[in-house]
């Protein structure tokens, strides 16, 4: 048994490829746990960042600076009454959030956090991701239908129409990135996620900057389409409260609703990781060839530690600014403890053995975190598109651009 476990550690492949069930399970737990923590963190970050954009503070009371707010929200939702409309189709009503959740979480098995840090590496990785994440449309329609009320139905129809339309543009942008992977000596591209990043490594450029501005435009198309795909502002008409229909999840309450939110945030992280993998170089550090060399490698590998130390510094600044009042004692201690934990993690990340293993994962996560911040920024800044304008943008603007970029990429690929 131990040999089984140990044998994987000497291999240089993902657990799925190595066929090692034990490590695959470990990786699954780690990734899914990480995603759940990330969703909770995203919830907190969204409320805080949105609040700061709107010159207010956001949650401050539940835990220092609202850090425990997501936990409180989760507990609240868990203990809420589970209301099912009386005329609803019970089985479909029950299964719709599960479908969305499963579809959103299943794609994480191919997301590459590093050259061997993925649960598995399907050689049709990207196709698998796009296909499985499209299944969430099914869940949306089922949710709207099972609610037996015409507002959720209209919301679900709008939502699904939107998601389907933007998938076309997304797919075409993805294809143009895949085309770029085939610009190597053998002329064969790859659909595997790890293979795509390795192609970027081999070609020594992030695909974002390849055939500038084509890679950039393809990335732009994908970035807009992914926001629409996940029903986020400015494409969140189906979910908006001030419009007439409150969306497909109107009739859901408590835990079921939280499953929808979980699925939505997980989908956001998933499509962001597609974008990062395809255009932003996946786990590669910035400037892999411009700033090459041992010293630069060292410098960039210190980033993880410094990030956590910076976060710890923010925490300690927060501690210093806490009101000096007995009521705030627990919050101050909590925040100081949190800062200490972050600092400890940062220090651990300076240690060389940890550093070497962690930097891939770190760079990948940092880029995805950047996208998450962009999502929140869009929500704070932009008004909402009206539904017909939304569809117009998807079909009449993004699709032609994506097709054009694809053709031009192919042409450039042939020429060079």
């Amino acid at each position, binding site marked *: 048994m131990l040999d089984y476990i140990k044998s994987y550690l000497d291999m240089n492949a993902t657990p799925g490829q190595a066929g090692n069930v034990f490590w695959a399970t470990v990786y699954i737990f780690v990734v899914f746990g990480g995603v759940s923590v990330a969703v909770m963190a995203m919830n907190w970050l969204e409320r805080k960042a949105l609040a700061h954009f709107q010159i207010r503070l956001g949650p401050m009371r539940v835990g220092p600076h609202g850090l425990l707010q997501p936990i409180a929200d989760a507990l609240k939702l868990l203990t809420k009454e589970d209301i099912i409309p009386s005329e609803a189709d019970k089985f479909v009503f029950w299964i719709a959030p599960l479908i969305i959740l499963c579809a959103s979480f299943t794609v994480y098995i191919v997301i590459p956090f590093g050259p061997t840090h993925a649960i598995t590496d399907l050689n049709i990785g990207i196709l698998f991701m796009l296909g499985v994440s499209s299944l969430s449309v099914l869940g949306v329609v089922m949710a709207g239908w099972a609610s037996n009320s015409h507002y959720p139905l209209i919301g679900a129809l709008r939502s699904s129409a939107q998601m389907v339309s933007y998938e076309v543009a997304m797919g075409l942008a993805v294809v143009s990135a895949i085309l770029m992977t085939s610009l190597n000596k053998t002329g064969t591209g790859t659909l595997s996620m790890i293979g795509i990043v390795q192609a970027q490594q081999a070609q020594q450029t992030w695909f974002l900057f390849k055939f500038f501005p084509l890679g950039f435009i393809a990335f732009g198309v994908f970035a807009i389409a992914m926001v629409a795909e996940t029903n986020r502002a400015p494409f969140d008409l189906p979910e908006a409260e*001030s419009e007439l229909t409150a969306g497909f999840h109107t009739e859901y309450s408590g835990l079921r609703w939280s499953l929808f939110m979980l699925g939505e945030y997980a989908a956001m992280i998933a499509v962001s990781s597609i974008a990062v993998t395809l255009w932003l170089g996946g786990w590669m550090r910035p400037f892999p060839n411009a700033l090459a060399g041992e010293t630069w490698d060292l410098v960039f590998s210190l980033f993880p530690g410094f990030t956590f130390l910076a976060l710890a510094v923010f925490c300690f600044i927060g501690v210093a600014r806490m009101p000096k009042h007995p009521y705030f004692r627990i919050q101050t201690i909590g925040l100081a403890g949190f800062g200490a934990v972050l600092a400890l993690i940062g220090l651990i990340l300076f240690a060389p053995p940890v550093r070497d293993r962690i930097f891939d994962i770190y760079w990948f996560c940092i880029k995805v975190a950047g996208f998450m911040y962009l999502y929140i920024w869009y929500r704070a800044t932009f*008004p909402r598109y009206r539904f017909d304008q939304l569809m117009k943008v998807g079909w009449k603007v993004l699709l032609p651009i994506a097709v054009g970029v694809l053709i031009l990429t192919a042409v450039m690929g042939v020429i060079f």
Partner: protein
Amino acid sequence: MTDPTTYLSHLELGQPDKTFLDSNELIINMGPQHPATHGVLRVILKLDGEKVLGTECVIGYLHRGVEKIAEHRTYTMFNPYVDRMDYVAAVSNGLGYCEAVEKILNVQAPPRANYIRVILAELNRLASHMLWLGTHALDIGAMTPLFYTFRDREEILKIFEKYCGARLTTHAFRIGGCQYETYEGFEDDVKKFLDFVPPKIDEYEELLTTNRIWVERTKGVGYISGEDCIALGVTGPVLRASGVKWDLRKAQPYAAYSDFDFEIPIGQNGDTYDRYIVRMQEMRQSLRIIRQAIDRIPEGPIMAKIPKVIKPPVGEIYHSIEAPKGELGYFIVSDGSTQPYRIRVRPPSFVNLQALDLMVRGQLVADVIAVIGTLDIVLGEVDR
């Protein structure tokens, strides 16, 4: 002679040839409780898919019988009631009422009182437009300008509070002038405010005016032509955005407005975007007026000589002002006693709301909310 069916707002007659139970039609109720309708307003929409075929507004949820109450109060007692109608811009309500009673008493408020009235009325116009901007942007989906405008509106409300003790329902003026002298530091506060606000208005414009999504959501939405505005009695920024250059402050000046130099912004297309631009420019013109007023405020008494018991002679008077929402008029009928025989308030929001049906016909559902926002109605004024 206009064709009466053009302006009908009755639901059935929106599409005369379609039968009522045509299978494509859907009747949806935007009920009195709704996050977007700025108060208790019920709009019944007849839809064909997403397109609006006809609307019907059901109002009266906030009817408090102010006109009936007026018949049982003395003129002075009625003054606070007036603020509660358009509660967002209470100062202008009070201004209109006090001026109307002064007119029927045939007295003039002294110049210093008029200048104070102008300053507070223009500050109040700014506050009303800021609130309008925040809520309108929120309806269209931009969440952030709401907080910015409310933060800046706080400064105005602080000035009101220092002046008369109340932020919202200010009861700032009295019949015959102002009761309170400007507090010490009033001029400094106002001048500080005048320096503080223009960059903020620029900030709002930066967020919205050239924002592609905002432009797409508001251009071409809720169109109403100048003739239709006049026919429907619509006044205020809605009328001005449709190209009719008319503002009571210039046409029939009251309360020292003839002393000031300001412009009336107008728009060309009467759509939501133009109404937005007109109101933003009105905000800047208000700043201009305040600046001139605060520089030139004369010394003198703030209250005219009026009898302790206000008993206007028998007669009727109609006086209207340019409130932030439109022409706010007071028709006072006196029978010689201390209580008015009838006070009729001509509310701008009530008459503007009639135009809703014309403006949203043929547009999409999501535009109905944008149009309600752009009309800038306050249900307290619609229903009284």
